[in-house]
């Protein structure tokens, strides 16, 4: 699979015609009748298929939201499971239309990979998971430890940076996928496993004895995660960006899955703009004016997506923290729809 994608890129890049990079992604998606979404196959709460093959997760709901905005049908999504190593290549080569796979926004990725982020749907930071019996209370105790990590991530680099900066020694064991890395940690190959803290919360649940493991308090990096698209198609970038902002605006305006129809009848000028009874905001994106109604009906607002997938009442038990709205002490902030 990995080699196949890489080979496909080489072939596509070598023999494909020089066309306007990826203009018309929206038209392509409409013509195909479905959105092809690059997803994480193995992080509970963000992207993971259940036994019946139904995908669930915060990132997965973003894919559904985009499909709902375009087709008014959140099921018109084809999920392509991608490892962290293959994801950018798959997006750049056109295999997927959008990549929503807890991917960290960094400068070099945006300047050298031909991709561009549409927003930050989860503010995260890197941490460590360790077994309680080691008696480690802080990352500063990890001198001399063996640490498992997944390949092709910012995690791999932050880990090296952290130990270089603190002058401590460690041994790394690098795996191709997070499943392999987690399993190796669980079987005792490593003293600690490192990834984004949201990922740690999810991976802890997949341990043979989840309660034996704790997440250390240190956060060693900034990990802004979000959806990204290919460069060169501003219409598509705008669409993905505004689906994200739309979800935030919906939460800010108190529009929920339950009350969206009722709110759509409101005379409030803000609600009229947001829900498409006034203005041509949807059409300017190439969508129907009721785009946000379609989205919220399908997946709810940002807060609902968060609570359903990773919030305090889910196994992950993550607090909103930085991911609360700007007016509730968090960092999630959307420009106004007007």
């Amino acid at each position, binding site marked *: 699979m990995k080699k196949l994608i890489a080979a496909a890129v080489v072939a596509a890049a*070598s023999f494909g015609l020089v066309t306007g990079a990826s203009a018309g992604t929206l038209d392509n998606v409409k013509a195909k009748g479905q959105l092809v979404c690059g997803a994480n196959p193995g992080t509970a709460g963000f992207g993971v298929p259940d036994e019946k093959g139904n995908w669930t997760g915060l990132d997965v709901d973003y894919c559904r939201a985009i499909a709902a905005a375009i087709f008014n049908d959140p099921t018109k999504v084809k999920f392509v499971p991608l490892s962290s190593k293959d994801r950018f290549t798959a997006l750049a080569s056109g295999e997927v239309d959008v990549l929503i796979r807890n991917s960290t926004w960094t400068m070099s990725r945006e300047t050298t990979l031909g991709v561009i982020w549409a927003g930050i749907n989860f503010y995260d930071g890197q941490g460590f998971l360790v077994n309680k019996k080691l008696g480690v209370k802080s990352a500063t105790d990890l001198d001399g430890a063996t640490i498992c990590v997944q390949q092709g991530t910012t995690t791999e680099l932050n880990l090296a940076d952290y130990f270089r900066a603190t002058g401590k020694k460690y041994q790394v064991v690098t795996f*191709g996928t997070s499943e392999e890395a987690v399993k190796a940690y669980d079987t005792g190959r490593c003293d600690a496993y490192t990834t984004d803290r949201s990922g740690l919360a999810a991976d802890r649940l997949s341990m043979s004895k989840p309660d034996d493991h704790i997440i250390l308090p240190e956060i060693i990096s900034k990990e802004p995660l979000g959806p990204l698209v290919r460069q060169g198609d501003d219409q598509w970038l705008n669409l993905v960006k505004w689906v994200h902002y739309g979800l935030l605006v919906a939460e800010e305006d108190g529009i929920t899955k339950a009350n969206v129809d009722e709110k759509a009848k409101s005379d409030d000028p803000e609600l009229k703009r947001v829900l498409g009874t006034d203005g041509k905001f949807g059409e300017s994106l190439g969508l129907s004016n009721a785009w946000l109604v379609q989205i919220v009906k399908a997946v709810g607002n940002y807060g609902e997506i968060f609570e359903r997938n990773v919030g305090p009442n889910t196994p992950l038990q993550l607090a909103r923290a930085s991911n609360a709205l700007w007016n509730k002490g968090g960092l999630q902030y959307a420009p106004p729809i007007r």
Partner: protein
Amino acid sequence: MSIQANAKHQDPKVVFYNDPKIRSLFFQCFLLIAFLALFYFAYDNTVANLKKRNIAQGFAFWNVEAGFDISQTLIPYSAASSYGRAFWVGLLNTLLVSGLSIFFATIIGVVIGVLRLSKNWVVSRLAALYIEVFRNVPLLLVLYFWYGAVLSNLPEPRDSIAIPGDIWLNSRGLLVPRPVMLDQFWVVSLSVLLAVLAGIAVHRHARRKQAETGERLPAGWISTLLIVGVPLAVYFAVGQPLGLDLPVKGRFNINGGLNLAPELVAMVVGLSTYTAAFIAEAVRAGVVAVSKGQTEAAHSLGLTDGQTLRLVVMPQALRVIVPPLNSEFLSLTKNSSLGVSIGYPDLVNVFTGTVLNQTGQAVEMVSVTMLVYLTFSLLTSAFMNWFNTRVALVER
């Protein structure tokens, strides 16, 4: 008259486009130019497409700081080293695992192949069972089996199994004292080299003597004594110039010493047990291909079973065995790229994996990696072809 006509027929003054030599040259040049044009088109198009998509290109990254660590490095490497150095680390790790696996696979394969032909029914069936099991299970599963099911069941570092001689065994590997060469060690190395050369000379002398007089010298014993005895004597004579770096228990791991990581062990065991099954079949085919009359003739000359195999059957079987062996070696080298699935830092893991992902330059990485495997394969083939001409039946 007829001679004249013939001479006229061979007149070189035929119209040039009817000259078969020129024609063939023309078409070959045309094909070559067409191929080069296609290649140039592909290259040019790649560059243009990548530029259009704002994807970085070129090999400027080669000297950029890598920023990530690698678990097993045969040459000094740290996160501050360059991507280029990471490439060499991965390349050497691939060579190490392939070399070790080829060595063990050949030994296991030959033994199993010979046992498969044993007259002892139980032994022959057991060998057949081995071959069938390993030939029919995907290699990835074999690797998972050794790594995930066998090696991970070893005790954790704090419960390490202590083996006398400062050797520790745990789920993170086998730790042995690491020999550290001190100043005078080059003398010992030199004596090893000289002893080997002397051993070869003894063998040559013994062979010549046997050809001339029929008398057999115990050349094997003499050369063994030379190769083992001389360096040992020199070692003690210059005052044992070898220190030991002993593994010591630390908080998390046993530090120091030489660590045979479970990834390396699982790769070598997995690759060699798997490939050995195919080699065993090649060996069996080769032995069976030697006519039964040869064995009977050898027996009637009074050679023992072992001698028959070693002196009569094997030399003839090799010409059948070597060509398929070559392709098994090639597959093994390429199969070592599965290392990434169990965390072994081979070329594909380090270079086509991490470096590709950090730089995003798939075209460059995949091309370089393909070139590396192609070079490995051509070198292996060249060596095996040379070996094949040596063992091939000399027909007069």
